[in-house]
């Protein structure tokens, strides 16, 4: 089911055009890691660089290059300290939401996961489901999730292969997974509680060296992601 959601999110023909006053190949290399077609065009001297994003149907959006780079390597801050960047970051994310990217790395996924956990923290109630592939991966996140569970009324469900025994935390339910399909996935999904507009999810599948994944703020898609985890036994 998660595989299906991921293939639905694949938007073919997505491309990025980088506009800079000089042709610095390093800029393009940095964008290429997303696995998206990248074109580079020259701007007049002493102008500020920017990026446009388009698909087969045409223009989708534009943003300053520095903001696009922030999207490629999101800052990893503790929940609650992101309010100052949330607005602009949100608009960047929404530009590319529901689109599967290849070649995502852990740092990018951590940044997006934090964004979702931070939303859940601010709403303070509702259901948050997170799959960590293996529970030993969850170990480094224990403090974050203890904070999320203790300081809110969130109903939190954590999924992973049972290769580590996590500490009991009030409000956190552990689900040991055995299904191979779920164990390949890094998922964080929040239903928004009573605020449907706050629903959001990240789905990423581990490939050989990196991840292919997408994020969404579409409540229906978030429901599908939550349902996919809910059906997992444990």
């Amino acid at each position, binding site marked *: 089911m998660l595989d299906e959601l991921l293939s639905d999110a694949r938007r073919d023909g997505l491309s990025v*055009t980088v*506009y800079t006053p000089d042709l610095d190949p390093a800029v393009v290399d940095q964008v290429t890691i997303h696995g998206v077609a990248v074109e580079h*065009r*020259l*701007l*007049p*001297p*002493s*102008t*500020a*660089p*920017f*990026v*446009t994003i*388009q698909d087969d149907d*045409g*223009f*989708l*959006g*534009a*943003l*300053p290059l520095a*903001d696009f780079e922030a999207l490629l390597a999101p800052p990893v801050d503790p929940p609650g300290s992101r309010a100052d960047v949330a607005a*602009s970051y949100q*608009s*960047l994310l929404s*530009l590319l939401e529901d689109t599967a990217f290849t070649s995502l790395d852990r740092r990018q996924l951590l940044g997006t996961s934090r964004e979702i956990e931070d939303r859940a923290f601010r709403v303070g109630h509702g259901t948050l489901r997170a799959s960590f592939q293996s529970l030993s991966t969850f170990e480094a996140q224990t403090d974050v999730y203890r904070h999320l569970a203790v300081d809110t009324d969130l109903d939190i469900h954590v999924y992973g292969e049972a290769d580590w025994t996590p500490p009991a935390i009030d409000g956190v339910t552990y689900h040991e997974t055995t299904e191979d399909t779920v164990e390949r996935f890094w998922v964080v999904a929040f239903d928004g509680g009573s605020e449907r507009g706050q629903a959001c999810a990240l789905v990423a599948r581990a490939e050989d060296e990196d991840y292919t994944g997408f994020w969404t703020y579409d409540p229906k898609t978030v429901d599908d992601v939550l349902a996919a985890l809910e059906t997992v036994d444990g």
Partner: protein
Amino acid sequence: MGNEREPTSVTESSTSTESPDSDSPGSRLADDKFYRALAARPRRRLLAYLLEHETATRDDLAAVLVGWETTDSGETAGTDSYRRIRTMLRHSHLPMLDDAGLVTYDSTAEEVTLRDLDERAVEVLQLSIATEQG
């Protein structure tokens, strides 16, 4: 109407194009149209872009102007801004630049080509773009 396709009118039109004298890059510096054409930031920007690329489609120019605007505001732009600028290009900016003799705008192919500019006009353009950055 009906005689547009007659051979004589085709021959005539080839001799009745604007004379090179009144249309030389330098002579445009005495034309009010030239200054009106430069009197808006989007038009200066698209001319500066064409100095680098010579030819671009209307879609390309709309994407460039929207992207360029995001560096002013620091905000992400979506399809609304794109559609707005694309419309402005067709109905205002491009006809004006074409009329001033600075570009050729083919509204069927949606292609814009820079015409020969006086080097002093190029300098003014480049200066205006460089000054924008403060």
